[in-house]
């Protein structure tokens, strides 16, 4: 008696795709560390890493190897289990979000239609938010387990900052959801392919979302969790070798994923050119899907560059300024944006 028929090919195809996406995000994060150093160097009129391999492209491997071989220290007064759980959690939550992002259109392969999205759940954006807010647990648990005042302060700052900015981010997103009328990311991309990119409809909303994304990723100017001049190193003061590497790496994966989310939500996802029907080019569906994936990847790279660009331009906020901006600046602005959007929708529907 068969109660549940399992489509093994689907399981296999999803499994391969998950492995592929995880590999891609790891490699991209690896090379983002290199890119960060290069962009920093260019902005400061320097050359940057150029010794390991041609143009220094083996630098991330050398860095990784160094991380592996460094001595690993777990403080005796720390909570061992939580101390190890912290970086793992940061890494896992960073990776999980990639599941609902549509990386491209459908591909025909071996007589099967394969969707380039791991799970097109109809609550996609809620899932992203859920996982994002879990991300702070990695930092908090790590800072608590270190049994160090300065680490704890860093963790506290990270937690309060992420909670504050999550609000403004959510409200900015509600305006977007009111326009699209769906929570599914795949559906949002389809709407943008046929109509306008959401950025042109919601520029203010996008801007609020961008600022909040900076704060959520703990990137400068909002990297209060790791202010080395006040808190030694912040939440990861007690961490060494690969565990520290995991924390830093999780930050880069977070950046990659939030760039992907921003590109998907506001810049048409895998849509190649706005206001243009690409099917006129007459390529087959497979090639179009690949081109779309490449377009999305390009948009992600642009966002990553903006992340780095801002990091090397704007200095870190003071803690009270950060809270002021979040609660007194961005949340009212997001509410205003939401009300205006609602009023316009109401006006147009009548």
């Amino acid at each position, binding site marked *: 008696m068969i109660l549940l028929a399992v489509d093994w090919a689907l399981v296999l195809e999803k499994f391969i795709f998950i492995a592929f996406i995880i590999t891609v995000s790891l490699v991209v994060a690896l090379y983002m560390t290199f890119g960060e150093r290069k962009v920093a160097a260019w*902005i*400061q*009129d*320097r*050359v940057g890493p150029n010794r390991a391999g041609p143009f220094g492209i083996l630098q991330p491997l050398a860095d990784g190897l160094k991380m592996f071989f460094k001595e690993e220290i777990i403080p005796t007064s720390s909570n061992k289990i939580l101390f190890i759980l912290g970086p793992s959690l940061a890494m896992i939550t960073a990776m999980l979000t990639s599941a609902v992002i549509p990386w491209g259109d459908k591909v025909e392969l071996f007589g099967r239609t394969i969707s380039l999205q791991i799970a097109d759940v109809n609550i996609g954006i809620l899932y992203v938010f859920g996982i994002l807010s879990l991300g702070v647990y990695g930092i908090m648990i790590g800072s608590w387990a270190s049994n160090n005042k300065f680490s704890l302060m860093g963790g506290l700052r990270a937690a309060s900052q992420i909670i504050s900015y999550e609000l403004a981010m959510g409200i900015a997103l509600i305006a977007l959801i009111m326009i699209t009328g769906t929570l599914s990311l795949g559906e949002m991309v389809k709407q943008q392919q046929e109509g306008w990119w959401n950025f042109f409809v919601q520029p203010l909303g996008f801007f609020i979302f961008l600022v909040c994304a900076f704060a959520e990723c703990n990137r400068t100017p909002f990297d209060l969790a790791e202010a080395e001049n006040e808190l030694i190193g912040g939440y990861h003061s007690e961490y060494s070798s690969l565990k520290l590497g995991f924390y830093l790496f999780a930050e880069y994966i977070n950046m990659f994923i939030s760039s992907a989310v921003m590109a998907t939500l506001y810049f048409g996802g895998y849509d190649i050119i706005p206001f243009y029907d690409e099917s006129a080019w007459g390529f087959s569906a497979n090639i179009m899907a690949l081109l779309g994936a490449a377009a999305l990847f390009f948009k992600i790279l642009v966002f990553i560059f903006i992340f780095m*660009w801002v990091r*090397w*331009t*704007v200095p870190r906020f003071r803690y009270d300024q950060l809270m002021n901006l979040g609660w007194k600046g961005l949340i009212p602005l997001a509410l205003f944006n939401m009300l205006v959007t609602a009023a316009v929708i109401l006006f147009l529907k009548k």
Partner: protein
Amino acid sequence: MQLTNKAKLVDRKPMSIAEKIYLPAIFKGMGITFSHIFKKKVTIQYPEQTRPFSPVFRGLHILNRDEEGRENCTACGLCAVACPAEAITMDAAERLPGEEHLYREEKYAAKYEINMLRCIFCGLCEEACPKDAIYLTETFAPANYSRQSFIYGKDNLVIPHPKENPEAFTKAKGLIDERKAKANQQM
């Protein structure tokens, strides 16, 4: 009294709206940093490229030989006396018959040591020397693993032999002469 033209009056005007919302300033800053991406890089790729020294740069010491390869130093001790850091020590010895091709004068330094950990590279030894024996070159003081290896003996200091190793000699010599010429020109 105004000493420089760099003084600026403090501006206590209340901020305009553009200044208050802070964003124009951020975009301006981003424009500045972006323009730096295309500017000329100031990096000197060290092992391949080196930076030219200042004509008055003072690096590691050498002990000079004359054109026939005889050591100039007569172990008079004036450099040791002049040295404010007391880094130089030496033992004098008398030249034996048959050693005329090694030492120019009848007295020579059997042991000549400079402690590079004490040396402050002031160049007073160079100025004190009546025999043109000690010079400061354009070489950096290299790193070492033990303190003992920072004490430079004659094996580290004496210039290469002009006849046995003319290339190294002219190189070492040339650097000095060129430097002196430049320094003289500037004076």
